[in-house]
């Protein structure tokens, strides 16, 4: 998943990165084909160049290696709302076929069965970045017909990268356009809570290269240290 996301970032991409898979993907891009890709973490670090994967968006190394560190109000007002971010990454607990996301509650808002952390930066990332990339593991619990709560809207979602393949919006509905090696369209359908559309020209994603795997391993090893 991280490798597929990394491949979509180019050398001049400015991306707004959260912790976990997005951070792994953006750092992988920086280590391979896009060394000048700009990583912006919402804690206020612009142009961070961590050597290991941070656990939190505010780890000290992000500030030490950044081109600039700004306050959080400035980050959201001047940089995100200001329209200076190309790609924003989002994850969620639920996604629907339009790319709307839920990271707020499972169940009703007033008496939830699971209270999730909440939207954080997501509502404005979803509407202020030029393109939104979603990274999520695919399962019927996650890929649902109807969200329990809409935390952010899917208008700018350009791609959804899952452990099974790639979905892209076609005529406003997320459509399976590629599967990873060894995964069938039926596997992806079975892991989706709505009747999943499959592209006529379904592709297979390229297997990871040695360079990509090496860079990934090196980032992870350091991150665990």
């Amino acid at each position, binding site marked *: 998943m991280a490798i597929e996301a990394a491949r979509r970032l180019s050398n001049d991409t400015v991306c707004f990165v959260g912790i976990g898979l997005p951070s792994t993907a953006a750092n992988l891009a920086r280590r391979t084909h896009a060394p000048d890709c700009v990583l912006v973490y919402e804690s206020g670090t612009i142009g961070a160049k961590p050597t290991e994967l941070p656990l939190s968006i505010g780890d000290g190394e992000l500030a030490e290696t950044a081109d600039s560190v700004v306050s959080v109000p400035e*980050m959201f007002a001047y940089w995100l709302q200001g329209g200076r971010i190309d790609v924003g990454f989002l994850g969620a607990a639920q996604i629907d076929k339009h790319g709307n996301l839920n990271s707020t509650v499972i169940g009703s808002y007033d008496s939830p069965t699971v209270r999730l952390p909440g939207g954080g930066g997501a509502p404005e990332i979803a509407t202020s970045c030029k393109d939104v990339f979603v990274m999520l593991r695919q399962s019927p619990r996650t890929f649902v017909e109807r969200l329990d709560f809409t935390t952010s809207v899917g208008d700018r979602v350009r791609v959804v990268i899952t452990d099974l393949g790639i979905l892209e919006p076609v005529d406003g509905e997320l459509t399976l356009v590629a599967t990873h090696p060894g995964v069938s369209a039926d596997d992806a359908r079975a892991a989706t809570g709505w009747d999943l559309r499959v592209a006529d020209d379904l592709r297979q994603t390229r297997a990871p290269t040695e360079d990509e795997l090496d860079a990934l391993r090196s980032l992870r090893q350091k991150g665990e240290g």
Partner: protein
Amino acid sequence: MTTLREAVASLVHDGDTVALEGFTHLIPHAAGHELIRLGKRDLTLVRMTPDVVYDQLIGMGCARKLVFSWGGNPGVGSLHRLRDAVEHGWPQPLELEEHSHAGMAAAYAAGAANLPFAVLRGYSGGDLPQQTRVAFIECPFTGERLAAVRALRPDVGIVHAQCADRRGNVQLWGILGVQKETVLASARSIVTVEEVVDELEPRPGAIVLPHWVVDAVCVAPRGAHPSYAHGYYGRDNRFYREWDEISRDRDRFRAWIDEHVLGAVTA
């Protein structure tokens, strides 16, 4: 300059709206523990990213309401005491006022600027506007529809910083979060610092809060732990992972608080 205990005892009252801010860096854990030791009650807690110290305050029944935008253990997962309060009302029900990061950051900035509300391009689409305090207004110049959020004006703002000089001028650097806005937006403020120095050194990216905007400066070495203080000590990532286990179980949580907070001697 005063002790943390005196500052918290005299400046924070039951029922107050209190913001202990920090965006993963410089989180005022020592001050949070003092609120628990002094048994503060019915607080409205404000924080963009409530994490472990808010989990502790909520689990100890200090809070009536939480104003927030992301409540989790960064990089680890859920806050189990926060979830228990929201999902099961333990140890007491917790009212929520939920925002987005952009909205809360703007609301702090408006508070610091002594404005009644902040305006931003946000909260559009989605279900959050139905659950929170946000209004939509028309730009008087362009007609664009924009979101308005009420300014945050906490009774007490509490932040941690690297150092202060002997007059109480406070210096902090690294990831700055909304600490400056919190101090300026709040009616009263407490700053805990790693150390007091004779003279503040100029540093790239550092900000200084003049002594006359801060009510109390208290020395609290390692007062941000398990968060970090840039230039002093690193983030204790292992503790954040351990908290996930400690906080899952009510009894284990209480035992941890008894040993590490209530049993600990205050400075």
